[in-house]
């Protein structure tokens, strides 16, 4: 199949894809290249006050007494608040969803009331004329604590010897068991059974811009304007409205430039809610920007899973069944409003995803601990499900003495099997596993790499090749959150206005944090209407301006927001032709819009340019028929509904070289073949994959939030918490197979999380492939030199 054929012109005319499929640079990158962006901390406001938080030094402790007397006298200090005072202005929340049956979590306050449940939880707020003055005063707060017993290890939490929230009865936030039946029978008759336990370290997003919020309450209007580094402005508008008691229409959330998000900036953070509440209390603009140390302590963490998995296969190499048991720890609270049950739930949904076995059992326990909270971070659950699946698949291939690529080819769901219902109950519209595998083999020259690997081994050079096939959730329907009662929009909208000069202004509810949303929307709008790309201006990130919508998460911007832009553009094109037909006294059906002009559809002859049409429509409508009104602003919305999720598929490969003396892994190259449907901008799609792969590599080799037995974060700074830097990263080769979704006219699926979903599994399999001749194996991420040397019994 070739690229999606988009009938961007009215039916019956020549098909022209316009700018779809072209690698055009992002227009909004220019200001960022000159340091002329507008991140929250760059904004300047009169009477701006700054907040700094006094955070719990203990993982679990009762607040016996807080003394603010010295802090309040510190220079520049305007006010100091404790939890109960802020609670009078900001209602607490409970993060549960009705469709995650039995999920429970205690009420959470903006500032801790009565006790702190993790090291770093905010227990008081100091407001001052400058951030440094606020920080000075934080040092002067005197606190008296009663230390409480802590639960740090997730296995201990499950045993429930200490219950973190006695009112909840036990430490289990959420549990689920999915069973197709027949799993034990499949294992009993299998020729080969392999079993492994994988550990996934707790890590975090490390956005280069810390979380940031500037709340500006207007007491006269009882209105609140919030400049917020967020992925979901409308969701936050609803939350500020309901928790602060301000009418929804009087809350405006503006997301200007956002310095990285990756899921970190889509959640409700207590310190950010406190900042908004303090703006209401003090009746002035108030800003909070998390510094790096408090980011490590309070930005959501993610992962931290222990998964036992078994696979049953026949001696001919047919996978019969998967049996999986996942335990994951989420900190002391489920995070609002998405809950912290989703990642584990995804692991149950996605384990074994690419394969055609029919028997599957997945068990999940999500438990509370006294560490920072965890929640949805880029690729949510996928890195776990892909790595455990692909790790056990490689182990089975090894035991069967089959090549890992051939073993996969034998078991992948065939490309002609769709629509397909997976044993976990998920429905796949159309995937292309075998085509992506074929493309990968060709792209990486798999056979000669294997030859080279063999030759180098005889010279004691240990290279490893690792594969990871994957499926990914994109374009989620309301089944993700809305059905569970969360006020999180699954639909998005686009408004397009033809300006009098013939330019387009496009307003979309999807937000931009650098992915290129605005660039692809310009491509879609320009193509759909028939104007030049440089005549298109995109506005996102302002609840007072854009249509209502979900924003940016779960790889939904292009597929959902892009479809709304396409439909709005087509409708505007039709309305433009209505106006042209009146001006020209010409049949609408014989006209079209091309290259900023209304033309004769058949001959291409220019009839009137859009600037002239705009002039007439806006300034001389008196020259148009009395019964005609030009409508040159159009809004359309789109919700995916036929499938719960529009699944994509892909496959990655990693080539590494291992030094058995040092335990260091050198990444030589990485490949990714992805099928995300219609590719709107190949360069931007590839860059999403590359950035995602590198985040996945971070999880596999470097990143882990380490806690002491007392629940103290041991490496919460950028010197001790390792992130991928340029010198260690490989070049990443990307390729695409395009299977457009038929649910939308655009045909786009999501691509932003694919890299992160597959990379950890591919790197793990490559490391274990390199270790295999040395009789060693690693299963606990990140694969640090120490862990590799331990596996080699060298330390």
């Amino acid at each position, binding site marked *: 199949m070739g690229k999606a054929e988009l009938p961007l012109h009215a039916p019956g005319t020549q098909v022209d894809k316009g700018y779809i499929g072209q690698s055009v*640079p*992002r227009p909004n*990158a*220019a*200001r*960022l*290249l*000159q*340091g*002329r*962006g507008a*991140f929250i*901390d*760059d904004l*300047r406001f009169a009477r701006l006050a700054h907040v700094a938080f006094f955070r719990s030094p203990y993982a679990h402790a009762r607040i016996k007494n807080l003394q603010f007397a010295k802090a309040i006298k510190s*220079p520049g200090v305007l006010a100091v608040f404790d939890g109960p005072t802020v609670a009078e202005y900001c209602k607490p929340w409970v993060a549960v969803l009705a469709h995650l049956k039995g999920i429970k979590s205690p009420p959470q306050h903006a500032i801790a009331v009565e006790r702190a449940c993790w090291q770093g939880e905010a227990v008081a707020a100091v407001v001052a004329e400058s951030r*440094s003055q606020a920080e000075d005063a934080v040092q002067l707060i005197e606190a008296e604590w009663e230390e409480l017993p802590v639960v740090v290890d997730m296995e201990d939490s499950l045993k429930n010897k200490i219950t973190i929230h006695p009112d909840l009865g036990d430490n289990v936030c959420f549990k689920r068991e999915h069973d197709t039946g027949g799993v034990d029978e499949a294992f009993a008759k299998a020729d080969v059974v392999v079993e492994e336990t994988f550990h996934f370290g707790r890590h975090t*997003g*490390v*956005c*280069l*811009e810390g979380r940031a919020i500037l709340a500006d309450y207007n007491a006269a209007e009882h209105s609140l304007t919030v400049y917020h580094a967020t992925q979901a402005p409308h969701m936050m508008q609803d939350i500020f409205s309901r928790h602060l008691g301000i009418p929804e229409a009087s809350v405006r959330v503006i997301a200007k*430039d*956002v*310095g*990285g*998000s*990756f899921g970190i900036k889509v959640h409700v953070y207590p310190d950010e809610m406190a900042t908004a509440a303090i703006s209401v209390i003090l009746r002035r603009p108030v800003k909070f920007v998390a*510094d*790096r140390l408090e980011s490590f302590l309070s930005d959501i963490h993610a992962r931290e899973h222990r998964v036992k998995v078994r696979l049953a296969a026949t001696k001919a190499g047919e996978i019969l069944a998967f049996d999986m048991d996942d335990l994951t720890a989420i900190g002391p609270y489920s995070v609002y409003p998405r809950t912290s049950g989703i990642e584990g739930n995804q692991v149950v949904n996605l384990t074994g995803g690419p394969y055609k076995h029919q028997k599957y059992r997945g068990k999940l326990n999500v438990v509370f601990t006294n560490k920072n909270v965890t929640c949805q971070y880029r690729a949510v659950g996928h890195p776990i499900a892909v790595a455990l699946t692909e790790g056990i698949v490689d182990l089975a291939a090894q035991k069967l003495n089959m090549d890992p690529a051939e073993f996969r080819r034998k078991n992948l769901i065939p490309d002609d099997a769709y629509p397909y219902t997976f044993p976990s109950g998920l429905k796949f519209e159309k995937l292309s596993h075998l085509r992506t595998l074929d493309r990968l083999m060709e792209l990486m020259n798999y056979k000669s790499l294997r030859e080279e690997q063999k030759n180098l081994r005889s010279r004691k050079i240990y290279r490893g090749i690792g594969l990871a096939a994957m499926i990914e959730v994109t374009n989620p329907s309301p089944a993700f959150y809305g059905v569970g009662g969360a006020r999180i929009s699954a639909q998005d909208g686009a408004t397009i206005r033809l300006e009098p000069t013939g330019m387009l202004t496009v307003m979309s509810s999807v937000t931009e*944090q*650098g*992915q*290129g949303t605005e660039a692809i929307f310009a491509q879609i709008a320009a193509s759909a209407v028939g104007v030049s790309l440089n005549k298109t201006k995109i506005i996102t990130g302002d609840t007072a301006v854009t249509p209502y919508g979900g924003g940016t998460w779960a790889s939904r911007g292009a597929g959902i927001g892009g479809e709304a832009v396409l439909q709005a553009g087509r409708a505007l094109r039709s309305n433009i032709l209505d106006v042209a037909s009146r001006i020209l006294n010409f049949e609408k059906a014989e006209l079209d819009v091309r290259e900023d002009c209304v033309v004769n559809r058949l001959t291409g002859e220019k009839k009137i340019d859009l600037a002239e049409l705009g002039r007439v429509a806006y300034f001389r409508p008196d020259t148009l028929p009395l019964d005609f009104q030009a409508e040159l602003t159009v809004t359309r919305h789109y919700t995916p509904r036929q499938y719960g999720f529009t699944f994509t598929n892909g496959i990655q490969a990693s080539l590494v070289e291992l030094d058995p003396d040092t335990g260091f892994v050198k990444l030589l190259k990485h490949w990714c073949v992805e099928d995300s449907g219609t590719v709107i901008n190949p*360069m*931007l799609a590839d*860059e999403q994959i*590359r*950035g*995602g*792969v*590198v*985040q996945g590599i971070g999880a596999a080799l470097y990143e882990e939030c380490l806690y002491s037995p007392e629940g103290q974060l041991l490496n919460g*700074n*950028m*010197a001790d918490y390792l*992130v*991928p*830097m*340029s*010198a*260690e*990263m490989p*070049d*990443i080769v990307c390729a695409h197979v395009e299977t457009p979704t038929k649910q939308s006219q655009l045909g786009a699926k999501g691509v932003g999380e694919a*890299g992160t979903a597959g990379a950890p599994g591919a790197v793990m399999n490559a490391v274990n492939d390199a270790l295999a001749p040395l009789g060693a194996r690693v299963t606990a991420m990140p694969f640090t030199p120490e862990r590799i040397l331990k596996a080699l019994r060298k330390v």
Partner: protein
Amino acid sequence: MEHALDIALTVNGVEVSRRVQARVHLVDFLRDELGLTGSHIGCEHGVCGACTVRVNGDIVRGCLMLAVQANGCKVETIEGLSDSGELAALQKRFHEKNALQCGFCTPGMLMAAQDLLLQNQKPTREQIREHISGNYCRCTGYQAIVDAIEETVHGKG
């Protein structure tokens, strides 16, 4: 208890005199006192490189130098090097290759890249990766940045 000192320096070619507290970092001074918000604050402990600026011709971490230490110095920031055109070739390649996503690291990354080009007219790909390895980018995975610098070096496109 606050110590304040008078300083005079040149910032992007403009002479500036201010009384500053001794504890103020150079990057805070540039951002808060002069409104030059292009140099970003990413970690405040000298690791991420987002606050990279040029002082007397050398790139430094704006969070590891005090404003008072810049007394008498010539300081250059992303705004100055953009307006002078010194970064134009790099900025063009960065734009074409999409060597930025959120753009928060980009000013520091460009300062580091330009520093390399001034030191070494024909750096290899490995030397490029090495030279920018003190600048953290969470979005791109670095390859497009390396490509953009390499193409600037070789004058491709």
